[in-house]
């Protein structure tokens, strides 16, 4: 079987890319191997762990359950696109640091991207809503308590910065 390739144009973190991708290339591997954006982590590769979560056209999705070929014409945000510049962190990242919301950090990029989309839609969530939003992201270190606290703090900071 000849390798089936497709030309795609995709915008990642504001930068337009043009690449030729094999059909079976997962979006997660495209980001990591082709664009060298290795901040998107790959955990289970079957949609369970949430580590590979990225934002595609505004919606948080599992990048291991999409093919790169499907992203032609789309706009993607990865964890590398969160911080405003080299010196500053995004309020979500700052809050994770301040609240000790990570230990090994493997799940963190997925959690950040999930919660970025969530907090844009739900700027003033209660704890139950945060836990529900986090339900698709596995963390085996923290027990989630510090992550939930970090998200409460981040929501507060994001509300403060937008008013």
């Amino acid at each position, binding site marked *: 079987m000849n390798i089936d390739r497709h030309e795609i144009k995709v915008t990642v973190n504001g930068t337009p890319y043009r690449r030729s991708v094999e059909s079976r290339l997962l979006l997660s591997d495209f980001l990591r191997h082709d664009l060298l954006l290795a901040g998107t982590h790959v955990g289970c590769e*079957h949609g369970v762990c949430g580590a590979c979560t990225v934002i595609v056209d505004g919606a948080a999705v*599992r990048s291991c359950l999409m093919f790169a070929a499907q992203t032609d014409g789309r706009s993607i945000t990865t964890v590398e696109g969160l911080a405003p510049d080299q010196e500053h962190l995004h309020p979500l990242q700052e809050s994770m640091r301040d609240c000790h919301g990570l230990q090994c950090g493997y799940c963190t990029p997925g959690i950040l991207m*999930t919660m970025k989309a969530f907090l844009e839609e739900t700027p003033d969530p209660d704890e139950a809503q945060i836990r529900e939003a986090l*339900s698709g992201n596995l963390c085996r270190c923290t027990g989630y308590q510090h992550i939930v606290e970090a998200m409460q703090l981040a929501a507060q900071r994001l509300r403060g910065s937008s008013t």
Partner: protein
Amino acid sequence: MKPAPFRYVAALSLEQALALKAEIGDEARFLAGGQSLVPTMNFRLTQPTMLIDINPLDELAGIRNGSDTLRIGALTRYRSLERDPMTAVKLPLIAEALPVIAHPQIRNRGTIGGNLAHADPASEMPAIVLTLGGRLHAQSVRGERWIEARDFFVGALTTALEPDEMLTEIELPVAAADSGACFLELSRRRGDFAIIGVACMVRLDAQGECIEARIGLCNAGDGPVYADESSGSLVGKKLGEGEIAEAAALVQSAIDPGGSIHASKDYQRHIAGVLTARALTTANKRARREH
């Protein structure tokens, strides 16, 4: 953990997608949300030679109002159903189940048609569509047809769809004013597959007597289960503790759950009874509020 090679075709039209499927047959798969198909491909449990991506076909998504039915395009994503205020009013059973169907990121991509065509016995939506007595619309180059939900689900991961057919639309009856519905499931973690899930709907007359009851279950057999005898046992009665307990016992004897390392058959059967009783009690209360 990477898919085997395949040809990818982004569909340009429904006609083109159907023509390709007719040509390639079982070896080709339609790619909708991909939230069930792609994991099986990543495990190489499924190795289609072609994926026909129907995501570009906007006409397959969206909800259309009928007089007493709703027609939901197969490509309608769960997130859209969740956000649509009409869902809670007209399809309360679905509205109640949506938050426990996988996780937000999965529901952002997952579609109702893909979920139904995948026909996982543990999945919520097949049981709900069966409980509501929905119909499923299939199209192929040969034409189109409606399939009743009770004929659509043939067995585990098996539907009545022919190799050249695509599920394009789902028709569901709108909740009647005299009805109450309830969906309950038990799972090990929120968003996991249910150990057992129960969907039920009851309609009451002005005296509070049941004029129709429908009970369905997920993960209780080879496919979604409609509990015929149990549902029928409630008609003409006021739903007191005794009637509900009897219906729950009938459900327990009617199902044949598979059992797993996490939940034995006996445990699943026990839980099916508990959840049926709870769901019926709640549905009955909700139906009474309407009078």
